[in-house]
């Protein structure tokens, strides 16, 4: 039965995708093994900075340790992270239509009843919940990023019916996008004047200043995430319509 060799393989001798798969699995496996070995072999510095944070939490103006680290102890990192978010928005933002209005409402003749009901019922609830999250960030898990993500989700829901359009390159949108960075920098540098060092909040106002920064950050993050969604959908739509034209013909 082995007289005739009936195994035929037409592909290249070395399959590139398989090779890269094997290589990446090997790398991940090696990293995993190393991690396990480190965790097992060495006790490490178990406490880290946690005790230091608990000690200083009363001086930070908030009671949630994560918010204290993000907005006070390591506020400089967060400031630069907000700049990173802006870089990403800049990279994908369309360059035309500077003069079109920021917000536009188009009457769509065919309404989807279920979608409309969802929008009417869920969106206000989400907006209120986002506001609560923003407020709650001071003493329990929550804060600007979570609230911004929720609001962006709500705006995705609103975009489903093609009724509302936002022009992200209008003047208003650009101001809102940079709002958090501007407020953060302004407060940070103003504090050099009042307190002698960058981003040193005075104890009496630190809670208030953190809330102000977080509120502005929520606005910018919402708009940034929504713009990512819209540009993704826009490019998707273009390719879909192209596809349709071709198939119809």
């Amino acid at each position, binding site marked *: 039965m082995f007289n005739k060799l009936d195994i035929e393989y037409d592909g290249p001798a070395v399959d590139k995708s398989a090779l890269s798969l094997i290589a990446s699995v090997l790398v991940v496996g090696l*990293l995993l093994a*190393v991690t396990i*070995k*480190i965790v097992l*072999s*060495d006790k*490490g*510095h178990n*406490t*880290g*900075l946690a005790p*230091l*944070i608990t000690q*200083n939490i009363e001086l930070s103006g908030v009671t949630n340790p994560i918010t204290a680290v993000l907005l*006070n*102890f*390591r*506020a*400089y*990192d967060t400031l*630069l*992270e907000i*700049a*990173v978010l*802006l*870089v*990403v928005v*800049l*990279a994908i*933002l369309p*360059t035309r239509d*500077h003069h079109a209005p920021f917000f536009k409402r188009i009457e769509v003749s065919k309404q989807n009843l279920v979608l409309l009901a969802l929008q009417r019922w869920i969106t206000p609830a989400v907006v209120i919940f986002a506001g609560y999250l923003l407020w709650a960030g001071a003493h329990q898990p929550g804060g600007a990023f979570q609230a911004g993500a929720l609001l962006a989700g709500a705006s995705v829901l609103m975009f489903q019916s093609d009724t509302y359009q936002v022009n992200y390159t209008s*003047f208003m949108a*650009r*101001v809102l*996008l*940079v709002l958090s*960075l*501007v407020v953060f*920098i302004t407060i*940070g*540098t103003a504090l*050099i004047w009042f*307190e*002698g*060092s*960058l*981003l*040193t*909040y005075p104890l009496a106002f630190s809670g208030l200043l953190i809330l102000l920064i977080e509120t502005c950050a929520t606005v910018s993050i919402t708009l940034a995430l929504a713009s990512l969604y819209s540009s993704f959908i826009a490019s998707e739509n273009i390719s879909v319509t192209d596809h349709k034209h071709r198939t119809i013909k």
Partner: protein
Amino acid sequence: MNYLSSSLLLPAIVFLPLLAAIIAFIIGRNRLQGLINISFSLTQFLLVVLTTLLFLDEQTDQSERYVIGGWGAPLGIDLIVDGFSILMLALTGLLTLLITLYSASYFSDKYNASEKSLRFWPLWWFLISGLNALFMSADAFNIYVCLEIIGLSAAALVALQGNRAALQAALRYLLVGLLGSLFYLFAIAILYRSHGTLDLMQIAETASHSFPDKVAMILITIGLLLKIALFPLHFWLPPAHANAPTPVSAILSALVVKASLYILIKFWFDVLGEATTFGASQVLGALGGTGIIYGSWCAFRATQLKLLIAYSTVAQLGYIFLLFPLSEYSMGVSSFTGSASQAAVYFIVAHACAKAAMFLAAGNLILAQGNGEIAKLKGIAVREPLNVLVFAIAGISLIGLPPSAGFIAKWLLLTTAFESGQWWWVIVVITGGLLGAMYLFKVLSLAFSTDPAVVESPTAKSTAPVSSVPVSSVMTTVALILALITLALGLNAEFILNISNTVTEVNGI
């Protein structure tokens, strides 16, 4: 307010470009756009010069720590500069000023790149502020954030060119950069676990020859080598640097790869010096040496002008990696002083100026010629004599001929190699120099060869490609200034070495 010290100015050096980015984004396209950006770059340059002078005046090893938020390490983040980082800051300030001047012309309404200016300026300023923040950071995680700003804005700037090749190169650049960052982040997690702090100096105090520290050092090295594009990991660099808009190519080759190199040097010599070994440094040196030969050979074979220069960057980065084997031998484990470090620092500065000058001149030649084919450059020296001169001066520095900054750098490297007895690196350096001469003279001889049919006939204008445009004098002047700086650095070597090595200076007195 008491007296002004260099550390007090550090936040301003980060925030000024951020402010410029915000303003550029808000105002959009405007007649005053170029003017505003130039004045920002001038202010930035003056600020950096003031900081450098103050730092030199203080005559210390490193500046005072600027404590952000009044917390101090390990709870908060500190800013600090030493001789090496102040030199990198000064270099960034200088190149920012010159390339901003160039870009104001490049993205003006005269050329067809003008509609890209809306996106270019904010991204440009974010890149600069990321670089500045990186060079003064004293915190391992803060460095990660800075690397993200730099990596993302650099990839977006490459994508600005908009054609298919540029987009592919940008996407690959982005993915490679993210992979490198992830390796770095993993290493930081390991370091935080075993040291309980993110402050570089506090990590350095407790660093040892232990297993976690070694793994962290290996991961940091791999991650940063991906970003630096050392030889086997260089695959993304030539397309990314060659397809970007000209000012972006210049800053990518001159500074962005050096930023990752700066972090690697910092970890290798200062922070985790205890975890490094002689064998590992020889491996890095060998990769650098292979990079020199391979990069030069690819540059010789390149048919596109910008691709040739990009491959030359791969080769030149190899020279800097000879620092690792040479310094270890001469100075023990964890010090970034001595002749090898001087050679490396000098190489970084010389390469930054020469490569920026070369990319700008090449961009001008391509504008004048209409496309980037090397073969089409025949006789261009008659039409664009100044730009060819800049290309020649930058080339002389890259080859390492006197009197240029590149010559001093190579001289320092060769003497160090002889002193430490590692003669095999001498062969690599000399071969690299010869190969460098081969690929650069190939371009120059073409540029100077006169083709009578094209040059002397009165119909020469009509044979010129339609897409060619006259190069503005600002763009030529900026390239020329950079080339002259390269020459001046060759005649004035002490200047750079004094800034970067204030410690030895103070000890010497």
